[in-house]
């Protein structure tokens, strides 16, 4: 924080040009840091007077240099902006902007701060023209600029072309979620507590007390520990808390450990396994047949005919509770699985190949299937037995 603040302050006060990258995983607070620094900067008198302009570009919005350039010109409010729109060809715009920036000198023109969010996407633009030009300006005696890139990619420097890299000043600020569980708990408490300016003071007091109790609760700690082990991303903590807090009603005014556990369960459920719960017995049977095929052929792809044969074997030898479905009905159930993307074709279905012989792959792990079967209501016993072992009918 200090580093960045100092860097930007120098840009504005001394008119020094710089470039820096803020690198950190998602949810590490890169944008928050930058915004914080900018807020602090604006509070400094000297800086505010110097009218720090900052075009903010996001790699997701400005998908090409052309768009980015127009956006910069628009945000800088240069003279070729006509009613919030920039006209003219790409080449003209580039020449114009470069000319504009070249005219400035260290001491006379307003420093500009370029913020490039999702910096890694700018790297993929053709020739990296925009980056080269921005860095080149920051390395030459023109209008003072500071280029700040935000990215989550650790290998960002390897993506830069060598001459662009040479012009980059190699200031990298790494942001990591380096806190341990104690700090994590503190964050949890802080996030959940009501602020002092909350209107109903007694309730706020009660709520905060409850939060304090929660944080000492073993069950809550377990839930949080589990989440912490999975990810240190604070956004997922927020998501979890959001789920829990949404259970709070007028009748149930305080958050309980059970709420959190419920939220955690929701948070970590397996999406595909959930789908399996909603399938018919026939479809379950088909999935089990596929699972057996996978085991026999060691993950090789299969087609409908193979699955049908496996299913037939089961029906003929073992099944007492199952009705022998006709082939078109089985086909229908199979296609339903295909639609649910529990099965994935290897190649795109073509008109020539018959649907029965289209090669497919199962997108479920055998463990997922078994777990789902345990939870499946009213599952016939013989089907369960069959699922447990492909050889059980012998």
């Amino acid at each position: 924080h200090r580093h960045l603040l100092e860097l930007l302050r120098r840009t504005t006060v001394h008119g020094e040009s710089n470039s820096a990258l803020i690198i950190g995983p998602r949810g590490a607070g890169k944008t928050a840091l930058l915004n914080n620094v900018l807020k602090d900067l604006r509070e400094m008198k000297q800086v505010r007077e110097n009218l720090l302009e900052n075009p903010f570009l996001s790699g997701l919005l400005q998908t090409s240099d052309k768009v980015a350039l127009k956006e910069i010109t628009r945000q800088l409010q240069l003279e070729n902006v006509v009613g919030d729109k920039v006209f003219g060809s790409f080449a003209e715009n580039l020449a114009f902007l470069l000319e504009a920036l070249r005219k400035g000198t260290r001491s006379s023109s307003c420093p500009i701060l370029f913020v490039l969010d999702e910096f890694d996407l700018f790297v993929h633009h053709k020739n990296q023209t925009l980056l080269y030009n921005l860095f080149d300006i920051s390395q030459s005696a023109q209008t003072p600029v500071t280029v700040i890139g935000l990215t989550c990619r650790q290998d960002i420097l390897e993506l830069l072309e060598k001459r662009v890299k040479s012009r980059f000043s190699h200031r990298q600020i790494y942001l990591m979620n380096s806190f341990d569980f104690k700090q994590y708990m503190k964050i949890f408490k802080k996030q959940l507590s009501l602020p002092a300016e909350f209107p109903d003071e007694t309730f706020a007091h009660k709520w905060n007390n409850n939060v304090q109790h929660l944080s000492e609760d073993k069950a809550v700690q377990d839930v949080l520990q589990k989440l912490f082990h999975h990810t240190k991303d604070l956004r997922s903590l927020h998501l979890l808390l959001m789920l829990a807090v949404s259970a709070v009603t007028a009748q149930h005014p305080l958050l309980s450990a059970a709420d959190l556990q419920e939220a955690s369960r929701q948070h970590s459920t397996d999406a595909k396994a959930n789908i399996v719960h909603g399938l018919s017995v026939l479809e379950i049977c088909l999935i089990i047949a596929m699972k057996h095929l996978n085991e026999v052929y060691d993950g090789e792809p299969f087609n409908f005919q193979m699955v049908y044969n496996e299913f037939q074997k089961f029906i003929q030898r073992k099944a007492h509770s199952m009705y022998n479905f006709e082939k078109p009905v089985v086909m229908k159930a199979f296609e339903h699985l295909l639609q649910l993307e529990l099965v994935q074709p290897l190649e795109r279905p073509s008109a020539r190949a018959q649907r029965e012989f289209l090669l497919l792959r199962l997108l479920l792990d055998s463990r997922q299937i078994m777990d789902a079967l345990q939870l499946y209501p009213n599952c016939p016993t013989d089907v369960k037995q069959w699922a447990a072992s492909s050889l059980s009918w012998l």
Partner: protein
Amino acid sequence: MNTRQQSKLIYSWYGKPLGSDRKLRTSQYKGILITSESSKTETCIQLGDFILVEGVNADQPYVAQLMDLYEDGAQHKRAVVQWFCRLEEIPQNKRKLLKREISAQEVFFDQVLGYDTDIAAETVIKSIMVLPLHLGEELPIITLNKEQTFFVRQSWDGKCFKVLSPDTFSKLKEANKKRGVIMNSSKAFIPSDILTPVKKETESVVQSATKSKNGDMEIESKHSSSKSSLAKERHSRRVANNDIKTPTARKKLELKSPTRSKGRLLGSEVLGLLDDDCDAVAPLEPSATKRKVKFTNETLGSPPKIPCSNEKSKSTSETAEDPQRFSDTIRLSPYTKVKDFSEKDKKLHEDDDIVPLDGCQRLSSQGLVLTPRSRRMCAQKTSALIAEQISMLDGEDFLSGSDSSYSSSGEEEEDDDDDVPCTPEKKTKSSRIFSTPKSSRKSAVHTPAKTLKKTPLQGTPRTPRNATPEIPRRIQAAQEPASVLEEARLRLHVSAVPESLPCREEEFQDIYNFVESKLLDGTGGCMYISGVPGTGKTATVHEVVRCLQQAAENDELPPFQFVEINGMKLTDPHQAYVQILEFLTGQKVTATHAAVLLAKLFSTPGPKRKTTVLIVDELDLLWTRKQNVMYNLFDWPTQKHSKLIILAIANTMDLPERIMMNRVASRLGLTRMSFQPYTYKQLQQIISSRLKGVKAFEEDAVQLVSRKVAALSGDARRCLDICRRATEICEFARQKKSPEMVRMAHVTEAIDEMFSSPYVGAIRNASLHEQIFLKAILAEFRRAGVEEATVQQIYHHHIALCRMEGLQSPTVSEIMAICSRLGACRLLLVEASSEYLHMRVRLNLSQDDVMYALREE
């Protein structure tokens, strides 16, 4: 000038050779005849005339005075000229010397040495007017064709402006005078071939008949009085040239010419007379006289009034003889004047229909005096005028003289001072247009096409082109560095340009010598400069150019133009043409057009061309599939007349061999230079030279930085950045203690910060399951022996590991989330997520790094 280029022009000599030089096998001529095939116009330009010469920029032809015309041994028509230069041709920094506003019409008597005054006669476009003025003199108001007239006040010798010496001044005046005379004779050519004589004849008979009704007796008296006049003589000459003309036409010509000259020359006197005598013309008079006042002022204002003085005296004597006739002529003259002016107005505001119509109305109102028949004539004439006006819309017709009527009207304006032939010319013209509707229609059809062509070129500007690219000024002045460290940091910034470039003296000298020799020879050449980034290629080349420019200013070298393009700053390789052309001439055109113009520019011998030094930075980005941009760039210097020196800069040493086709590489030539990466000693020298006088760094610290960087890349930029960062760290640490210098510790910290691998830190700070996932990957890799695995395989390992650790095993969805997070950080390389469990995963760093990072805990 488009029209000019389109219509084929034939240049032929006028008259017999004046003299010839046997030894040189040249023969000299006194004039040149420019015939345009498409419009059947002939223009004659004589020695001493002022001319426009084709230049680099099609919209800004050069101004010159024709000094000599000759045909050399190889039958090439050559011309020797005295140049005038426009303001645009004077370098920006010198313009300040003028200390006054310069109108677009002002030119400078060019005394710069080194311009080739011997040009091909084919480059002459047409003749114009150049009026010498004294420095203090006001610019005369020109209501006439603005593009045709220029003014000279000062001379320019490449360094400063001087007032015209009286000698040159009088010479210029002389030229104007002489021209007046010559013009008359040349004028005679124009109508002769174009007119359908019979029609014109009859027409003029009709005209003169109608006119003579008013001035019956005047014609009589004119016949007698003008016998002795100069006009008569000229007229006879004209008849000799153009023997088709009938006496009636001649009569009419005479009738008109003196009156006009009088009307014009007598100025205010005429006005007075007009008031007295011309009651009949009263309704029209005020406007007409107003215009006339303007006109007379103008003629008075323009210096070359003198040649007409003898005429003036003659005509005044005539007036004295015959006041009656004079009043009559006045009555006629407004008519011509009005027409005259309406035409001029048309030229000025081209689409202002009202003015010519006004004129027509006036004509008809004047018709009160004239007979009904003549009134009809007027109507007919106005229709002709309107037709003409359409064609007039294109002001260029006029310049090119592609249409006879315009050439004549153009000359008419040039002839303001020698008056006499003007009026008849106009008369014949108007009658001609009327009588040969075919031609006028043709021209009318002709011109819209031209105007259409012209307008898109000028373009309706989509962006406000005049917008000045500028960043708003800062309110507060930038702070000056306060401490030693800040000062050091300022100096260490890459942008801080040092006075000299240490460690690149040899390269500097080589490049300097190369460019200097080419400049002195006036030839072209290429040089290829390569080197890894940050070795000072661009800086050195810029330094060379700076030194050369200084030398050129001190007159040690011929002056040259300097153009720089950067492949990275172009959106498309073809934009290079546009930028070069814009630098050279200031034109803005499309890429393809620019390529054509540049090719023309460099392949044809230009008269006033300076050598151009072109720097092409980041050459490899100009690569296209057909390589035509590079080919053209390197082809131009090999042209005989190009005078182009190219310094191409790129990173790769073997670029010519690697990506260029043979024909491009061979044109690039073998003059190469490669910049070696800096050694640590050089880097040390660079830093210490920048820090001279500032005691901020320990000697050892500097050495450490330079050794470290030299071992890695030899990039000076990196070196300076590290030093800068070190000062920051030092400053940060200093706040607690007393001020100190940058020590080893600070530098080490800065280096660590810049070169440390981010991966290890990222892994150490990852969550537990992320680390387990990485372990699972390693285990899977070891099992399979392949550095790639699907998520499904890794998932099994992951669960196994979780069991060992006694943790709850995650669901597949959670595993996918972990996988995508690691993928976003690029610790892993993952496939598209549609594959789900079968998604293949690879490590983006070596297994050992992962092991190292995980084992530490």
